Structures are given as structure tokens and as C-alpha cells.
């Protein structure tokens, strides 16, 4: 029972982290039709930048802010300078360009921070744990779960309840008409892409204390985030959330029960979902 509850908690926490990545990826894919394979690199680079800031200032929240801003700016640059003009509607070009960025960022990270796995220290006030009998619930993990919930609500509000969300949805339906009535669609798209990137950079710092930072993590986490998007359905925020929790839990239980074939359990889940609904659980097309 204790094992079961602990694995469930671990799964939910990891799921929240995956949600942060998948939400951005799904936003870019579903709303803007942009495939961003550098998303895992945003995560890793954000984490490393956070690590350096935490090391020098001893302030975890400053580290979060630094990782988030740096990656937000990088995302803005990626979209504005490279993707927007020529590759906004060309998936293959996006895939290859962002994969090129993945290689470059991965090598730069190894160059600057070395190949040894690093971990960001937890913030002072979140170091304790809550005890329920035999079950230990680390405060930091509780904070990650709450934060995941807050970001879910923020993104939902942004997409469904703000002017920007509405503009983006209009822009997807008819780009020229939206521009024709005097809306600066380019600005809104850049904003969306930057927000997606920024959340990924933030996730890198948040994940730093419990899954660490290491070479190859960029592709591993990108892969899981993509599976989440495939399972949840492209462009669906709730799909990203449900998919992320599902994969987080399966990953957590799979790793402890079937360590040799843990990745196969994730694959099997994806296949089952695709067999029943090729567009994902919450997918529309």
C-alpha cells in the first residue's frame, strides 16, 4: 500500500513536469502548426541556466526566473528570426531546423556544464516533508503539483478567456482575414511561441531538484512530451494534462515493476490509444 501510494505520488509529480512541456508543445502544434523538436532542449538549457544562477545566488526562485526569461527570449528569437518568415507552414523545414537547434544546444550544454549529471538544490522553505503515518510526502513535490495546477488554469484562461487566445484561434481559421481587420497576428504568434518556450525553460529548473540535469535528457523528455501530445490530442490543453498524468503514472509504475521493459509500457499505451482514436483522446481532427 505504501509502495502504491509512493509510486502514485511520484507519477503525478513527474506527470506535472511532463504537462509543462506538453502544454507548450501542444500549443505550438495545435494552434500554430509548428513542430518544435528543440522543446526538450529548451527544458535542459533552462535547467542548466537555473543551476548556474542557483549556484551563484543560492536563490531557487531567482533561478526559476532566470531559466524562464532566458528560454522565453530564446523562443522568441527562434520564432521571429528563423521560423516565422519562411517556415510557418512547412512542417519538414521546421522539423529539420529545430532538430539542428537540438544538436547545437545539446553540444553547447555539454561544453559549458560538462557531461556529469547535475542537480539543483531544493529551496530552503520546501525542504521538509509532511507525514501521513508511514507515507512521506515531500513538500517540494507537493509544491510542484500545486504549481502544475496553477499553470493549467492560467493556460486555460489565456486560451479561452483572453483576447489573445481568441485572436490566435481566429488566425488559425483564416490568417489573412484576421490581418485584414487590423490585428497584428505576428505579434500574437510570437507571444504564444515564447510562452510555450518559457514554460519549458521553467520546467527545466523545477525538475532540476528531482530528475536532475544530464546529457541526453533533452531527447528523453522531448520524446515523453511528444507521446503525451499524441495520446492527449494535438492542440488540446486538457489532452496534454490527462496524457501527462497518464504517462507520468505509467512511467513511475513501469520503472519499478518492469524495469527492463518500462519504456514498452508507454509505447503500448500510445498504440492502444491510437488504435481506438487516431487523433488522441481529446483530439478533434
Amino acid at each position: 500500500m505504501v509502495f502504491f501510494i509512493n509510486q502514485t505520488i511520484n507519477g503525478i509529480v513527474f506527470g506535472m513536469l511532463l504537462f509543462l512541456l506538453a502544454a507548450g508543445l501542444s500549443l505550438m502544434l495545435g494552434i500554430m502548426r509548428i513542430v518544435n523538436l528543440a522543446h526538450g532542449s529548451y527544458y535542459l538549457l533552462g535547467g542548466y541556466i537555473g543551476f548556474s544562477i542557483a549556484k551563484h545566488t543560492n536563490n531557487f526562485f531567482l533561478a526559476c526566473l532566470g531559466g524562464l526569461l532566458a528560454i522565453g527570449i530564446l523562443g522568441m528569437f527562434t520564432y521571429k528570426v528563423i521560423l516565422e518568415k519562411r517556415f510557418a507552414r512547412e512542417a519538414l523545414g521546421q522539423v529539420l531546423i529545430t532538430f539542428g537547434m537540438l544538436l547545437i544546444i545539446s553540444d553547447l550544454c555539454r561544453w559549458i556544464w560538462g557531461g556529469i549529471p547535475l542537480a539543483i538544490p531544493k529551496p530552503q522553505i520546501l525542504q521538509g516533508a509532511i507525514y501521513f503515518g508511514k507515507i512521506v510526502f515531500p513538500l517540494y513535490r507537493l509544491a510542484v503539483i500545486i504549481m502544475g495546477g496553477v499553470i493549467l488554469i492560467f493556460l486555460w484562461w489565456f486560451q479561452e478567456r483572453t483576447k489573445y487566445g481568441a485572436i490566435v484561434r481566429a488566425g488559425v481559421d483564416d490568417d489573412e482575414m484576421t490581418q485584414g481587420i487590423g490585428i497584428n497576428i505576428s505579434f500574437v504568434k510570437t507571444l504564444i511561441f515564447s510562452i510555450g518556450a518559457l514554460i519549458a525553460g521553467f520546467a527545466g529548473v523545477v525538475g532540476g531538484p528531482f530528475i536532475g540535469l544530464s546529457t541526453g535528457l533533452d531527447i528523453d523528455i522531448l520524446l515523453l512530451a511528444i507521446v503525451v501530445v499524441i495520446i492527449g490530442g494535438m492542440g488540446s490543453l486538457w489532452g496534454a494534462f490527462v496524457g501527462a498524468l497518464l504517462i507520468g503514472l505509467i512511467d513511475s509504475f513501469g520503472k519499478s515493476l518492469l524495469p527492463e521493459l518500462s519504456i514498452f509500457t508507454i509505447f503500448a499505451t500510445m498504440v492502444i490509444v491510437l488504435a481506438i482514436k487516431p487523433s488522441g483522446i481529446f483530439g478533434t481532427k
Partner: protein
Amino acid sequence: MKNPKLPIAIVIILAFLSTLPLFLPPYYTGLFSLMIIFGIFAMSLDILQGYTGLPSLGHAAFFGTSAYMVGILNVKIFKGCNFGVELITGILSAAVVASILGLIVLRSKEVYLLMILMASSMMLWGIAFKWRSLTGGDDGLPGISRPDLRPIHWDLGSTTHFYYFVLLFFIVAAVLMYLVVHSSFGHTLLGIRESETRMRSLGYNIWLQKYIAFIVSAVFAGLAGILIAYYNGFVSPAELHLVTSAEVLIMVILGGAGTLFGPAIGAGIIILIKNFVSGYTEHWMIILGAIYIFTVMFAPQGVYRLFRQFLQK
């Protein structure tokens, strides 16, 4: 398409390839073997990418599966090389993986398809990485011996002889793939690439045609996988990794998608650059990343078309 200078070009290239070990040092002959193996791999992806219009970021799945099949048979079962069995099983294993994956993925389209293929092939990578007892985990399977052709006086331990062995397979595979894309089936695939709706209204079973193309493409990728296992003498999860899938995709784009021979040239260029740059700096991944970006920005049509335009002048 018809160009009188093209046969001449082919003869020159063949003459160059078949006399190459005579004037190049063994190191470069070995490098050309690698280029030719990846040439087969890239051409096989072009059947999907260029001719059928199915983008794939998971082509390493077939390449790696057959390489592992050869590795497991060679190292764990025969304790030596049983070439006939390994060749057939390797190709069959790639075809089986493709026929299973095809059932799952081909209902999806474009970006979705690309991502599902990527996820699927990375899952195979994960299995190879984790299932130590069968695959050796991240150490891979070392000690794969090359086919023993000494009875017919062909010593594949020699770089030159192995080069001709690979070249022979390359020519056979290239001719077969050329016949496939110029058959009525190949033209159907082109039709699907250009307009699925039109082909459907003409009465074609789009799904089935794509499914067959998927398997045919996997078979040739599998052949390349078998050769790479012999070339390296070991298999590792890297053969199944996303980086390999992306590399073969950039070879196709750089060479020219939909030109069949272009991707082989793209493969040669990428292997050559990788080899050259990694001799100078350990940060060759940065250069490779830059090549990805520059190829898409400045040569999205591929070098083969530039070459052909040059011939037509």
C-alpha cells in the same frame, strides 16, 4: 527527365566507384563503404519521403532492427556468421516491424505521422537500451563477424574486399529501387504524393499503396542495417536512435527528395563532413546542427537538382 548526358554520368560514377580502392588509401576506402551503406539507407527513405510524400523521423527503426537481428544471430546464436540466414532474417525483421508499425501509424497524417514514427522508433531504442540480457544494453553487441566468403576467394576482413561486397549490394539495391519508383506502382505513389483525393476518386486503395511503400522502404533500410552491422562489427542502440533517423532525413533533403540517387549523394556529403569535422573538433555536433539549418534555409531542393540543371546546360 530524359537526359542524354545522364547515362554518361552514371557510367563515370560507376567507373569511379569500382576503381576507387586502386588509388585511395584503405582508410578512405573504408569511409566510402560507410557512405555507400548510408546511401542505400537514404535512398530507401526517399521512397517514402520523396515519392510517397510520407515524412518519417523514425526510419532508424528498420535500420536498427535488422542490425540487431544480425547481431543477435551472429553473436548469441551462431557464434559466427551464417550469412544466408542473417541476410534473410535481417530483411524479414525490418519488413515485420514495418508491417506492424504501418498498421498503427498510416491512419495518421503529416505532422502527426512524423511524430508517431519518431516515438515508435525511439521506443525500440528504449527496448534495445534497457533489455540488457538480449541486446547488451548501451554497450551493444560487439564481436559480429563478417560473412566468410573465402571459399570463393573473397576475404571480407580486407577493407578493399569488403568495399566491393558493399558496392555489389548497393548496385543491386539501387537498380531494384530504380525499378520500383519507375514502375506503375511508383507512379501511383507519385500520384498519392501530389493529390490523395484524386487518386482515391480514380479508385486506388490509398492506404494499401502507402502500406506497401512503407514495407518496401523498410526492406531496403533493413539491408543497409545488415551491412552496417558487418561494417562496424558491433551494434549499439545508436543505430535505432532519433539522431540516426534525423541524419538520414537530412541526407535525403540535402541530396534532393524525390530524385532517388540524390539522397545517396547527400549521404556521402554528410558522412564526409562528419568525418572531416570530427577530426578537428569534438564539438562537431554544433557543425552538424548548423548544416541542418543551412540545408533547409539555402538548399531545400537538394544538390542533385542543382547538379542536373548543370548537366542540362
